[in-house]
């Protein structure tokens, strides 16, 4: 879950609530869903919150939410913007994999160390979340003073910068934290930041590049150039975002712009001019996109979802305290209802709710109902047990498993619960079994793609290896050790819809000084008698068992498993110093079908 680091003094300043102490702030933020996690070394308070409200990734956004919560602000607020003076030209050389760009100009910023840190934090956190570690969207913030417009060669008019693609070694620039001219390919090979993000562009034929009149100044999504580095002296910023989805980078841009506007900066639009053969298709956009969208939600739906009856005016109030704005959107009374006395509102109105452009989480009217619930306080709701007549019950296999465990424990077996994941050696080599052989356990195991632990690389194709491993790990414990498990085994089988044949097996081991075949067979007989199934044990062979002391378990005519004395080689491999008799068979054989 995302974490935001907040300077409590700054929060007091931005909310205008100097009187709130840290504890009050923590408690108010908990009400908004931001949970206090601890303090950083610099004394910043850390809060964790759900990844829905990414507009709260900075102190400015948190302060905004608090002001709504306190009722200081109401409804949707959109920063004023000035008309565009700069064009981002997107040409046909832009990499197909990363076709989109957006941005804004911000003037009149007043950054001190603290607010610059906050801006960089917001940028990094947006990268980590919405930006999917910069793969989906990456933000570049530049000092506008260092940029010279008019890079257009042929049809140029006015100020512009160009988003294009270049050969990996097609040009050079001095990246941040460096003092050498490097090509983009050299950045990936030699610069620490380049190394970190090299994977993002590794497959690209051409690397993303942004030019102004003076040349290459940014290599998104990897690193900016040093020429346009932002400092506390910067007064005007150029913001550019590139990515794989226009909406995503537009929203990231909005969140940044709202944060800067909250500190008194002025936002100025830019034109995004996708050229005729740019991979995104020809069109011109004006950004940032502060358009306020609306969704409709009915009063009735709010009441049924929250289980509370409301007056329409209460609902409108709760919307406004969530930073939304709502008007009654009744087909008949639409125009009349707006601004009318709340007492005259219809009984089951439909609200047209305006959603501010920094919200990234409102996909459906439901999300607006959640906001109403949060503003109302879910704590206030009285739980009630739903009066619904349903009949409970367990499925057949669940009952069969439980009954089998009862029989096994009645026979003195300790019921075990082992992992379904294991490693090849445990089920094959250490049990003397060749992978791919016809024997029980020899089937093709289901492999985990790119396993991270060498102990867990496959699903177990049979049970006994797990039980023998438990014996191996408990040689210091009292004997006899009679262990059993009813559990999942799996084999690769392309005939099955999911390509994995999942079965439940019953396995048992008897480790005791005088364990013999007969001990295992006796218990097997008892189990079969309890489930009223016929057992036959014709001789067979299996490399995990002693020849001549192993039989197939044939239940009601079906060959479903094995019973026998484990081979000394298997025992020695598991550091066992006493004989072990064992059985394993399919659980389904005990059932009625």
């Amino acid at each position, binding site marked *: 879950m995302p974490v935001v680091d907040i300077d409590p003094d700054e929060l007091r300043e931005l909310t205008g609530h100097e009187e709130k102490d840290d504890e009050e702030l923590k408690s108010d933020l908990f009400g908004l869903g931001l949970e206090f996690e601890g303090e950083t070394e610099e004394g910043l308070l850390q809060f964790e919150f759900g990844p829905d409200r990414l507009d709260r990734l900075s102190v400015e956004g948190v302060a905004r939410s608090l002001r709504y919560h306190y009722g200081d602000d109401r409804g949707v607020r959109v920063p004023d913007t000035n008309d565009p003076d700069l064009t981002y030209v997107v040409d046909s050389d832009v990499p197909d994999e990363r076709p989109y760009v957006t941005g804004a100009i911000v003037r009149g910023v007043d950054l001190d160390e603290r607010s610059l840190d906050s801006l960089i934090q917001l940028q990094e956190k947006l990268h980590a979340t919405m930006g999917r570690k910069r793969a989906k969207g990456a933000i570049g913030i530049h000092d506008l003073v260092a940029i010279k417009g008019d890079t257009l060669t042929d049809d140029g008019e006015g100020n512009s910068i160009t988003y294009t693609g270049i050969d990996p070694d097609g040009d050079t620039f001095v990246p941040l934290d460096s003092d050498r001219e490097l090509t983009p390919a050299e950045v990936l090979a030699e610069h620490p930041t380049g190394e970190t993000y090299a994977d993002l562009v590794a497959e690209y034929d051409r690397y993303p590049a942004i030019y102004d009149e003076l040349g290459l100044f940014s290599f998104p999504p990897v690193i900016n150039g040093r020429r346009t580095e932002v400092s506390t002296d910067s007064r005007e910023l150029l913001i550019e975002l590139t990515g794989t989805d226009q909406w995503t980078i537009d929203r990231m841009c909005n969140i940044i712009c709202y944060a800067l506007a909250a500190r008194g900066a002025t936002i100025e639009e830019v034109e995004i001019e996708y050229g005729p053969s740019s991979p995104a298709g020809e069109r011109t956009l004006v950004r940032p996109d502060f358009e306020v969208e609306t969704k409709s939600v009915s009063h009735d739906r709010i009441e049924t979802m929250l289980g509370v009856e409301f007056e329409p005016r209460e609902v409108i109030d709760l919307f406004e305290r969530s930073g939304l704005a709502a008007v009654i959107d009744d087909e008949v009374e639409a125009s009349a209802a707006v601004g009318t006395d709340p007492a005259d509102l219809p009984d089951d109105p439909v609200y047209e709710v305006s959603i501010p452009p920094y919200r990234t989480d409102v996909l459906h009217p439901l*999300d607006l109902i959640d906001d109403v619930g949060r503003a109302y306080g879910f704590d206030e709701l009285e739980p009630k047990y739903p009066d619904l007549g349903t009949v409970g019950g367990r499925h057949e296999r669940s009952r069969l498993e439980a009954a089998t465990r009862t029989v096994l424990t009645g026979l003195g077996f300790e019921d075990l619960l082992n992992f379904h994941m294991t490693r090849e050696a445990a089920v094959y080599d250490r049990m003397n079994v060749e992978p791919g052989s016809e024997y029980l356990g020899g089937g093709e195991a289901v492999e985990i793609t*790119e396993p991270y632990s060498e102990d867990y690389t496959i699903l177990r194709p049979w049970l006994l290896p797990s039980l023998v491993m438990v014996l191996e790990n408990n040689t210091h414990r009292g004997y006899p050790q009679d262990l059993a498990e009813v559990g999942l085994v799996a084999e690769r089988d392309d005939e099955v819809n999911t390509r994995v044949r999942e079965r439940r097996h019953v396995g048992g081991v008897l480790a005791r000084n005088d364990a013999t075949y007969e001990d295992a067979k006796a218990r097997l007989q008892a189990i079969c008698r309890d489930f009223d199934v016929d057992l036959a044990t014709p001789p067979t062979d299996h490399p995990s068992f002693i020849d001549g002391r192993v039989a197939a378990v044939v239940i009601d005519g079906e060959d479903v498993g094995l019973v026998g004395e484990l081979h000394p080689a298997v025992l020695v491999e598991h550091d066992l110093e006493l004989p072990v008799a064992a059985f394993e068979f399919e659980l389904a054989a005990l059932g009625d079908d």
Partner: protein
Amino acid sequence: MKLPESQVAVLNAASATDETPIDRLATEADLKPETATQAVFELRDESLLDVTERESVEYELTEEGRAYVEADLPETRLYRAAVDAGADEDPVQMGQVIGAADLDGPEVDIALANYGRKGYGDIESGELAADPDADAGADPEAAALETLAGGEGADGIDDEVLDQLVSRNLLDRNERTVRTVTLTDAGVTALMEGVETAETVDRLTPEMLTSGAWQDVAFTEYNVEADAPEVQGGKTHVLRQTAERVKDVLVGMGFQEMEGPHADADFWINDCLFMPQDHPARTHWDRFALDVPPIADLPDELVDNVERAHRAGVGEDGDGYHSPWSEDFARAIALRGHTTSLSMRYLSGTEVGELDPPQRYFSVEKVYRNDTLDATHLLEFFQIEGWVMAENLSVRDLMGTFVEFYEQFGITDIQFKPHYNPYTEPSFELFGKHPTTGELIEIGNSGMFRDEVLEPLGVEHDVMAWGLALERLAMLTTGAEDIRDLHGTLADLDFLRGAEVTY
């Protein structure tokens, strides 16, 4: 008079005049000491024997004590060396005397301390004087050691000397209770009149029962308080017990159990749940993808509906995700990260047909997460999953259901913290009070399934759902501190055998 065999033997070995210690009686009667002791007390209870208890103190030389018997006490050696060096006339250098006395290590301090204590002379500024009148040869401590080493008792030795030697750690003092036995008059009389051995039996045999011989025998008494040997019965795994308990509770609340595949298409595991395909939890770091071909069959219409929900949302005012969506990814097989895949299968109608409200379903089954294995995290664990479908469910119904469920496990004061899940809205993290410590702990995640989840599945009613790790509940209710003791091949049999049963 008839008495059991051991009592007869003890009675015969005892004397009316000499106090015989029980040890000696046992030897003479050829009985094990504990058998003899038991017989003695039984005979005392019959007033045939008197038992006298006496505290006996015995002294034994320590290793150091024995060494000084051989080599003399260090202070004695020092005194002799001092006299030899003429210290009885003029003080001499201490170093010189110590060397001559053959003292080293801790013996030096011992010698000097006792030299002064016994008045052998003064020690001042590194010089040693010897009192010519002292008689090191007649030292009572040395004499006592000599006496005890010779095997004689401590009777003639002054208590103060003994205490001194014990405090010098040259003697060990052992105190014990010695029981001696004498025949009473009744005992003597009984012996004179003749005592026979009664037949006592250790075990009741089938023959005794059939022959009626049981009527003529006495049964040996057992020490019924003694611990018996350990017996190891079989027991249902402690986590399974908790699972059974949860299933009982849910069945009692009207829930039907679901089942389904552990290895499933990402479609059922994630796409149906409206989890965007570029969600961090769907990267290969968090899931266990399996090296098998994609799923053979998915319901075509459902796949279209789900893709449409991801791309465009549902409903007039719905928006989709701005994330890529590919059917190939949806068809890839992985181990399920939650059993909500089962809920999706059941709600879609593919498992038990279309469901009309009201419905309640649950499962307590294994899920797989690629987490770091530690005391509270496993790669495989059990998830308790449940959902309720009905017309017009509210979040209050959801709250009421969970309050009821957790109360069955002693967890009360449930709090609902608003939360975010891609598949539910509103969503709540559930917190409850720990049944013993009282602290607030997270006990589950819940919410109302989104329209983007339900509409593609063809569900036209409200569905509320929740999930919780069974291990978390088991750790709360059993007090287990390391989850690895509970689950997996590292299981400690002693832990499982000793685990308290759940009911």
